[in-house]
Structure formats: structure tokens, C-alpha cells
């Protein structure tokens, strides 16, 4: 049997990297541009032995672009060749970069440990999986999607009904009565699907601790949700005066500016619901609640609409300074007490994130009961 020394060494290396991240997570996570080209850049130059280095930036040997040099980035058309010549450390230092997925995984590990959350089992498939990855449909149900209609069973059902009710051998299909659909076999698969819409307020005041808190919360939400929904669809919205859908990368690299129109955020989120009727739908909105005065009434109406159409609306009042809850957040806090599919979280620090998660997970695990308030109910429901 071969001893995989490389893997063992890598494991040791990653342990140290984790320790570093653990110490510096709070600073790392607030970087305005968290993701660049799918990577999270750290300030860590490399996990290195503590050998001495020159301090100042100095001239180094380089080769023109197109040559086979290698190593770190640097100026365009300038490839530092130092490293290639063995042990040389001139030129731009290569910073440790992590794939975003890996960063999230490490951050989750750190946060879960810090919050002493129960560690959840991983699903067989993980991560963000979009709609192409349908679960295998190998069972039949009377309720389902038109696209999954089982023609054979449906026609047989129609024939029998027509014989029974009208006494004629006729294929006069009435979908409401005859339809049979392909669905997942619930005993064979626990594939739930969810639509998660993340809405982030990026008006002027949102930076630093604010971003750190939001991102930590989102990573922890992912941690919980990914273990429940191996096939989830995530969409990202940012808003200030207007709302825009963003890619994941853009969502984690925001520039804050402008005023606050919470209604715009809700409105955009509602647009995301189009065509995803078979999903469990979640809306997570993060804001400091200081919506422009003229927007208050409209925001209320949009919030009500979101409550009617989403299975669960989580409102995170981001409040790292631990001030009182006022403005629109106060209103939401009131409503959330009455509506079973609304949660309100006052995000002050990591402890309050734990409380928010606990509430949220209680709703999820409460299953159908918590969902009574929802006027729309997906055919698949919860199978937990």
C-alpha cells in the first residue's frame, strides 16, 4: 500500500491555513470585493517558513509575456522569473487565494464551531445546483407539473372515468381528474428544491462590520440550507434607490452608495418567483431598515405581497452598533410576531446570528405547520 505523503502534507498545510483563517475571518470577510474571478484573496502571502525577506519593493528579473515563465501575477507583459530559478523571492509575492467554495466551506467550519451549532450531515450532492439537475422522477402522483405528465397512466385513467361516468369508451382527458405525473419517489430520494433569494441593501451606510455580519449570516444559512436542499437555486439582488439582480460574484463584491428604497428590493425579489412554482421559496433580506420616508407605505405593501407569495420571508435588521430597532425594521418586527412565515432578526453580533438561525431553522423544521400562513403551497411540500 502506498502512503500518500502528498495528501498528508496537504492536510497538515490546510489545517494551518484554517487556523489562519479562523484568526482573520472577521477581516477577510469584510473585504469589499470578496470574490474576484471566483477567488477570495487573502492578505496571507503564503503559508511560509519564517525566513527573512527584503522589505522594500525592489527590481527583479523578468521575462516578456508569451515566454514560458510562470508564477505570480504582476504587470502585464512582465513575468517574474525569480521563483523559477530556485528559492528566490523577488517580485510580486503570490498571495494565497482560495476558491470561493473553499472559502465558504472554511468560513462555515469556523462559524459553526464558534457558534457551537450542531454539525449537520452533508447531502449526497452539495452546493449550488441549478435547474438542469432534476431529481430522478420514478414515481407517480396525482399532482404535478404539466411537463412531467405520464401519458399512459393519464389516458388509462381518462378511459376508465369516461366508461364509469358516461358509459362511452372515450379518451376525453380532464387533467384535473385524470392527470398522473412523474414525481420523485420520496422513499428513494430526499431531494428537496428551494429557491433562495438574497436581497442586500447596499445604500451608503453598508460596509465593514455590516458586510461581515451579513456574509457570516449568509454562509451559515447556506450551511443549513445546503444540507436540506441539494438542488437549490440561488438568486441575488442588491438595492439602494433601485434594485438589480446580480451574479453571486457581484453580490459579494459590492460598492455601497445611494439611498434606500426597500420596496425596490422586495419588488425585484418577487420577480424572481416567476416560473419556479415547484420550489420551496425563501426570501432573505438584509438592511439597516432606514428606508426613505416616501417609500415607507410602498415598502409595507411590497412586504405584505412577499409574505403572501414566499414560503418564508426572513428579514435581517443589520445592526452591528446595537442601536434600537426603528424605522421600517420596527414595523417588520411587529408583523413577524403575527405572521407564521415571517421572521425578524436583529443582527447585532454573532450571538444574535445564532438566535436568528435558530428561529429560522425552527420554521423550516416545523414543516407544514409553520407554513399555514402561506397562501400558496407547493405540491411537493416538506418531507423532513
Amino acid at each position, binding site marked *: 500500500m502506498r502512503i500518500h*505523503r502528498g495528501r498528508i*502534507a496537504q492536510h497538515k*498545510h490546510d489545517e494551518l491555513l484554517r487556523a489562519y483563517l479562523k484568526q482573520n475571518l472577521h477581516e477577510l470577510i469584510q473585504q469589499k470585493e470578496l470574490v474576484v474571478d471566483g477567488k477570495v484573496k487573502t492578505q496571507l502571502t503564503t503559508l511560509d517558513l519564517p*525566513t*527573512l525577506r527584503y522589505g522594500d519593493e525592489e527590481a527583479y528579473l523578468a521575462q516578456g509575456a508569451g515566454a*514560458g515563465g*510562470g508564477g505570480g501575477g504582476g504587470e502585464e507583459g512582465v513575468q517574474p522569473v525569480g521563483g523559477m530559478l530556485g528559492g528566490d523571492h523577488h517580485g510580486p509575492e503570490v498571495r494565497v487565494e482560495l476558491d470561493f467554495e473553499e472559502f465558504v466551506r472554511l468560513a462555515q467550519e469556523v462559524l459553526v464551531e464558534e457558534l457551537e451549532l450542531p454539525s449537520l450531515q452533508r447531502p449526497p450532492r452539495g452546493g449550488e445546483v441549478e435547474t438542469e439537475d432534476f431529481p430522478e422522477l420514478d414515481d407517480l402522483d396525482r399532482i404535478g407539473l404539466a411537463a412531467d405528465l405520464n401519458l399512459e397512466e393519464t389516458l388509462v385513467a381518462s378511459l376508465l372515468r369516461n366508461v364509469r361516468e358516461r358509459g362511452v369508451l372515450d379518451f376525453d382527458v380532464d387533467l384535473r381528474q385524470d392527470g398522473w405525473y412523474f414525481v420523485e419517489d420520496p422513499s428513494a430520494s430526499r431531494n428537496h428544491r428551494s429557491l433562495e433569494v438574497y436581497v442586500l441593501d447596499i445604500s451608503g451606510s453598508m460596509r465593514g462590520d455590516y458586510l461581515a455580519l451579513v456574509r457570516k449570516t449568509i454562509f451559515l444559512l447556506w450551511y443549513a440550507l445546503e444540507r436540506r436542499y441539494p438542488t437549490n437555486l440561488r438568486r441575488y439582488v442588491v438595492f439602494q434607490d433601485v434594485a438589480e439582480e446580480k451574479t453571486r460574484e457581484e453580490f459579494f463584491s459590492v460598492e455601497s452608495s445611494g439611498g434606500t428604497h426597500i420596496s425596490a428590493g422586495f419588488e425585484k425579489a418577487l420577480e424572481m418567483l416567476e416560473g419556479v412554482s415547484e420550489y420551496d421559496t425563501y426570501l432573505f433580506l438584509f438592511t439597516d431598515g432606514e428606508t426613505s420616508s416616501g417609500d415607507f407605505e410602498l415598502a409595507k405593501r411590497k412586504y405584505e405581497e412577499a409574505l403572501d407569495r414566499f414560503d418564508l420571508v426572513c428579514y435581517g435588521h443589520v445592526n452591528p452598533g446595537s442601536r434600537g430597532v426603528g424605522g421600517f425594521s420596527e414595523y417588520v418586527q411587529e408583523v413577524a410576531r403575527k405572521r407564521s412565515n415571517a421572521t425578524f432578526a436583529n443582527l447585532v453580533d454573532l450571538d444574535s446570528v445564532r438566535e436568528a438561525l435558530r428561529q429560522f431553522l425552527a420554521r423550516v423544521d416545523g414543516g407544514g405547520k409553520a407554513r399555514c400562513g402561506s397562501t400558496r403551497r407547493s405540491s411537493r411540500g416538506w418531507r423532513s
Partner: protein
Amino acid sequence: MREYEAVIARVEELARGLGLRWDPVVFRMSEVEEIAEVASMGLPNRFVHWYWGGAYKELRLQQDKSLLSILELVLNSRPAYAFLRRSNTYLQNVLVIAHVYGHADFFANNHWFRKSNKNMLNEAERHARTFRQYEAQYGRETVEQLLDSCLTVASTVNAFERDPTRRRRRLVYFLEEHAPLEPYEREVLQAVREEAEYFDLIQRTHVTNEGWATFVEATLLRELLSAREWAEVCVHLCARPTPYTLGYALFGAIRRRSGFEGALEARRYYEDVRLIDETLTQDLVDRLDLFVYDPRDRSRNTQVDAVKEMLIEQKLYRGEPRVEVEDPDHPRDLVLVHVEEGRKLDPRRIALYLKAVHRLWRHPVRLRANGKLYTYDRRGLSTA
């Protein structure tokens, strides 16, 4: 391996015709993972340390996609072990085989390599076993910290240094002789130093060695391949990293000047400093598009003297600050001096570096650099 037997025999025949001589070569067909492992650790069966883990991870990622992936690996041992990559095409492996004979010839004939330890494979294995035993005896953490310290000071070795007085100014030799170490600690330091010398030799002959191997490879392949295959191969040859192309160009220049005999002579007596110093011309610098780049004003210096000086300095000192023991005859106090006083050392690394030295020296360690005197003792770092 069978399919390569014929081509290996043919390559050997051609190489012998050119006047090459070598110790037996054992070829091994290996997986990408194994090659990445050996490349990151330097030797198979070497002790496992987190430091190689980062390189291993990086190499694993590179192996699959980039042109820079390692096609081949040869060890300076008797017999020489060469690793061929299973995922290479037939033609790629023919290239590799020809290249390997260049290395094998260099190992057997180069003045510096002839005297090198050809039993390093077994040595490394023995070291690894000893370290594992010490881990069990003294605790994993203790041995790991010891190894961190040893590897940190081990960069002060010089495989070419023959003068005993100069040698004693080098930190690693000084510590080996005078540090108040436990017997097992001294053994570990010695083992790490031996391995470091082995790698130092490789580093100091890197350009010559790779240049010669590429030069031999090209010479053999011109005989071996059809015109079409040769054209295909040329693309590969040009995409090699800088030490390969630089060394190849230098040997080409020697052959133009004094024939293949001259090249054979050079491979016998030269190491990188001499090869570069005697052979690099302005014409070659221009053709290879080499220059000294200054990031402060984004200027490029393409003068052969500047390029040559920087290359040689890198070869002599690896671009690392030169720190020497001030007075090796009074081993009670350890005072280190940064030789090039004018250049600033990165202050962030000084405390970590001195801590690592202190771990071995136990008594206060001083460093004269940046116009200050740093002292590290049990209470930590202080500056005067």
C-alpha cells in the same frame, strides 16, 4: 513500459554516439498524483511536512490544465529514477525519455554532481523513519516545531562552500556545532541540513542541468523524429520555463562557438554562475526577452550586464538576505549580522525568524539589521 523499450534502446544508442555516459536509468510509469507528490517534496519517501503541502496542492491543480505541468521528473540517485507521466501522449514521453538521458549524463559527469550523495533516496527514507519515531517519543507538535526551525535555518547551507572558516559563519553549521541541543534534536538538524545541501546543489546547477538536458533532448530528437513530429515537438520546447530556455540557449551558443565537444566540456565543469557569466550575451538577452524590471518606476533594463548581475546574485544568494554569524569563535552569544546593511529587511518577519532560531539556540539571539539591534529571548522580541 513495454511500448517504450524500443525507443529507449534507440535513444541510448544515439546518446552514446554523442559521447554521453550515464549510470543506469530506471523508468517508472506513474500517475499525476505521484509526480506532484515527488515534485513538491523533492524526494519520494521524504518526511512529511506541512510546507510541501501547499506546493503539492498547487501542483495537483496545475497538472490537469496548464502547459507548465510537469512532464517528467528524474532523481539524482544511482540508479537514476525517472518518472514518466501515464497521461502523456506517446510523443511527449519520447521527449521526456530523451530529456532524461541528458539529466542522467549530467548527474554522472558534472564535476559538482559526481561528488554528490547518490544514496539520498535511502537517506531520506531513513530520516523520515527516524522523525516518525521521535514524533512518537517526544510528541508530534514538539517535532513539528523543531522541523519548522530547522527548515528555516537550513536555507543558509551552501553546497559549494569548501572553506571551513566561511562555513562556520553560516548559521546552520554554527548551530549544529554549538547549539545546546538534545541528541535527537541535533540529529534532526543534521538530517535536515543534509537534505538541504542536496537541494542546494540542484538549485545552484538548475540552469546548467535543465539547459543541458534540453539541449541533449533537442539534439537526439532531431535524429529520432520525422520532420512533422519535430515541428510538433518544437512548440513544446519553446513553451518551457525560463531556466530551460535560458540554459538551452546558452549551450546552443557554446556549440556555435566551440562545437559539440565544447558543450560536452561545459557540462562537465560548469555550474550556473560560470555558465551565465561566460556565455550570456546581449544578443541572447534580447532574444530571450529578459530584463530587470523595477516596479517602482515600471522601468525595464535590458542591458546584458544588469541581467547578468541579477541572475548571478540570485544564483549566489537565492535572492534571500545574507545573514551571517558575527563571531563564530565566541559561541556563548549568538549575534547575527545582515551583510548588506543598506537593504531593509521586512520587519514583520524578523520576530518570527528570531523565534525560530531561538528555539534551537535557547539563549538570547541578536540580529543587527535595519540599523537596529533586535534581541529575542524568553520574553520575546526587543529592539535597541
